[in-house]
Every structure is written in C-alpha cells, then in structure tokens.
C-alpha cells in the first residue's frame, strides 16, 4: 500500500525524520505512536505531499508520489487541528469538498451518527472544538478511498461520539481499507489497532503487533509498554 524508504526531513536545524523505512500493508489498522515532536505528523504530511522530504522515496499504491497529486484521490485525511475557513457554513464546506473531489460521498448517515443536523447551517467559526472535530470526521469518512489517515481522531470528542468513531473505524476495516492512526490515548489504540509503529527522535523504534510490544517490554498494559519503550531509550 505504502512503501517508504530512507525518508529524511529537516526543518531548519531540527532533524525531524532521520531515515524512515516503512511498509504499510493493505487492509490493516496501523497506529503511529511516539512522544510529542517525534515526527508523527511530519511523516503523515510527507505521505500526503504537504511536506516535501529532503531525501528518500515514498510510494503510494505502487507509484512514487513525487510531483504527483492524483494519488490523493485514494487518501482521506483527518487533520490534527480542524482548521476550516471560518466564514463557510458546515453544509457549504461539505458541498465544496465533494465538488473539489468530484465525488458525491455519503454524508447523510455520518451526519446522523454524529448528530450534526442542528449545526449544518452554522458558520464553522461559531462551532465548538468538539463539533468541529465531528465535521472533520464526517469529511474524512464520507468518501470511499482505500487509505484513511487519521491524525488524533479522538481529540475533543464526547464519550458517545468516541464509541461511534470506534465503530466507524471497525466498519471501514471490514471494507478492506487501510488506516493510519495517530493518538496519545493508549486505550483507544489498544481497541482499534492491529499494528503499532513507534517513532522516537525521527526513527522507527518499534514496529509490530500489540502482543509483540507487550512481550518486548514485558508489560501487561499498552500504556505502560509504550512508556517503557520511551524510557528504555
């Protein structure tokens, strides 16, 4: 699905990614973990082409993404901070994204799941953080792309929405989609992820299933296992 080889990225003097090699297989849910500033978002943005790598190659669906843009049609992305043009209404934003992607999408069901009907004709600037995140989720989930990248999907969600989100993620997996998820909430990761990719200081420090992670760190709970990984270094 995604092949990354020798990926380097520097922001000024700050070495964010130092030679990432990574293979993402189709049909699985990957959790990208790591402490703050370990390069998770930079990695995701490199895959999306928003950050341009200094060195290394990225292939999505067997094609190099360099200078390409059509491959983004195969990716649905949920950005970490839901930044939307504030003077648009929710329904206008959705209509715009549909138009830009040339894809009608399936928004009705998602709007119902997240109970967004009363907010549809409000301007985005007037929405609360959690509601914005729900709009963000609807936009990310409404298309049938093969790859779904979710950057901190659970930020600001209430428990009910969180349950719906987990159900949605499972449903997408059943459809055979590949998901990349970053999160700091280990309980959430434990519930949804098949494999864990642990980034530390710009390198992949660990990649494997959750069981392998527990064995390696000799812990019984994911939160402690991840903390142990960070300490070991």
């Amino acid at each position, binding site marked *: 699905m995604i092949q990354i080889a020798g990926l380097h990225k520097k*922001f000024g003097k700050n070495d964010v990614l130092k030679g990432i090699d990574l293979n993402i297989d189709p049909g699985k849910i990957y959790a990208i973990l790591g402490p703050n500033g370990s390069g998770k978002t930079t990695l995701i*943005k490199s895959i*999306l*082409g*928003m*950050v*341009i790598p200094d060195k290394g190659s990225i292939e999505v669906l067997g094609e190099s993404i360099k200078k390409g*843009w*059509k*491959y*983004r*049609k195969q*990716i649905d*992305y949920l*950005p970490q901070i839901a*930044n*939307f*043009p*504030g*003077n*648009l209404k929710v329904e206008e934003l959705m209509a*715009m*994204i549909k*138009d*830009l*992607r040339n894809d009608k999408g399936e928004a009705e069901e998602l709007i119902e799941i997240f109970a967004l009907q009363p907010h549809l004709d409000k301007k985005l600037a007037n929405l609360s953080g959690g509601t914005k995140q729900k709009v963000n989720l609807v936009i990310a989930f409404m298309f049938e792309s093969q790859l779904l990248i979710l950057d901190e999907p659970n930020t600001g969600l209430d428990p009910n929405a969180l349950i719906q989100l987990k159900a949605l993620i499972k449903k997408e997996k059943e459809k055979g989609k590949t998901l990349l998820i970053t999160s700091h909430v280990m309980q959430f990761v434990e519930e949804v992820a098949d494999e864990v990719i642990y980034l530390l200081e710009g390198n992949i420090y660990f990649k494997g299933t959750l069981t392998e992670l527990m064995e390696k760190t000799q812990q019984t709970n994911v939160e402690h296992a991840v903390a142990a990984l960070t300490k070991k270094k």
Partner: protein
Amino acid sequence: MGKVLKYSFYDLIRSRWSYIYFLFYLALGFVLLFLNNDLSKAVITLMNIIIVLVPLIGTIFGTMYYYNSKEFTELLLAQPITRSHIFLGQYLGVAGSLSFSLALGLGIPFVAYGLLKSNAIFDFTLLLVTGVFLTLIFTALAFNIAISNENKIKGFGYAVLLWLFMAVIYDGIFLLSLIVFEEYPLDTFSMVATAFNPIDLSRTLILLKLDISALLGYTGAVFRKFFGTQIGFWISILVLTLWIVLPILRLQYKANRKDF
C-alpha cells in the same frame, strides 16, 4: 484550478471589504463627475487616485487573504489538486474580485453620466485596463511576499514597504538622479527607469493618451516619441505583462517547494 478560483472568488465577493472597496469607487466616480462636470478631467483626477490606491489595496488585500486563508489552503493541499492550481486559483480569486469591484464601481457612474456617447471612452477604458494590470501585478507581488514570510507582521511590513517604494521612494530616487546627473543625456535612462516601475509606467501611458504631454516639456516630447507610438504602447503592455508573469512564476516555484 477553476474550482479553487470559484470558491476563493465567492468567498471574497461575500466579504464586507469587497463591498467597501466597490462602494468607495462608486462614490468616487459620482462625486468626481458631478464636481468636475467634465469626463476628461474626471479621468485625470481618477488616474491620480487609481495609480496610488490600486497598488496599495492590491498589496494589502493580497497579503491579508493569503494569511487568512491558511486553513483553506491546508484543506486544499490534502485534496487531489496540484499545488500550482491551488495558489494560482487563490491569486486569481483575489485579483479578480478586486478588479471586479474597480471596474463595476467606476463603470456604473461613468456609464450613467453618458460615457458611451462621449469620446472619452477610450481614455476611460485605458484607465480601467491599467487599473486591472496594477491589481494583478501588486496582488502577485503580495502573494510572493506572503508565501516567503511565515510571520504575518513581517509579511505585512514588507508588503507596505514595497508599495511605499514603488509609489513614492522610487520617484524620489528617480528625480534625485535626474538632478545629480543633469549634465548627461538622460532620455534613455529616464525611459528605462520609467519602464521598470509599473506605477510610473501606467501613469505615463495614461498621461500620453490624454494629450497633456505638453505639460511635461522636453521629456514629454521624448516620451511621446517612444510611449506615444504603437510600438511604445505595446512594449509598455508587454512590460506590464512581464510584471505579472514573473511574480506568478516565482509564486509557483515557491509553492512547489514549501512545507505546510
């Protein structure tokens, strides 16, 4: 690109500032016509205002829009659209809506006054064309400044400085150099120096078309010999076009290499 342009344009057309800009020109047009009672004189007064104001509004609106639409840009970057289309679309959206306000705001009072039946229509059209050129040029320069500066305050500062330089300081240096080197033949120098500043170039173009170049004395005669001819006119248009094309090329170059 068409879709990005469409949404940027809609967004701007709905904004309060476009209306203020439009209403300002509308009021200006009516006031000038009724105070002057003469189309040609109104055109000259308008020229003096347009040539300074249009670049200022272009630079300020351009930088403001770029910084304010950061979220919109990030949203677009994750969609299947090329980067150059995103930025070109936004640029044309801003420049387009500004030109729209200008043309409509000035056009309505002049048409109402009976422009279509008068022979000032050519001068007026030229005025609008240079106004549109200046909008395109200074919005493109503003986008260049904004894309190169992450810091809003710095970006604004540079944009205003650029306008100040082009509208005021450049002329000052130009005049000073004419005085300092007055012993030398300066025809070619002054012509080239005029061509390098889009504001001066636009002013010269309009003044020569308005048949008041006699006011400019000897220099006016030299200028008339060059800018007043067909070739001179087309060279001026070419230079103005270059002033649009080069910044756009740099904008695309920068956009393709920037991290978001």
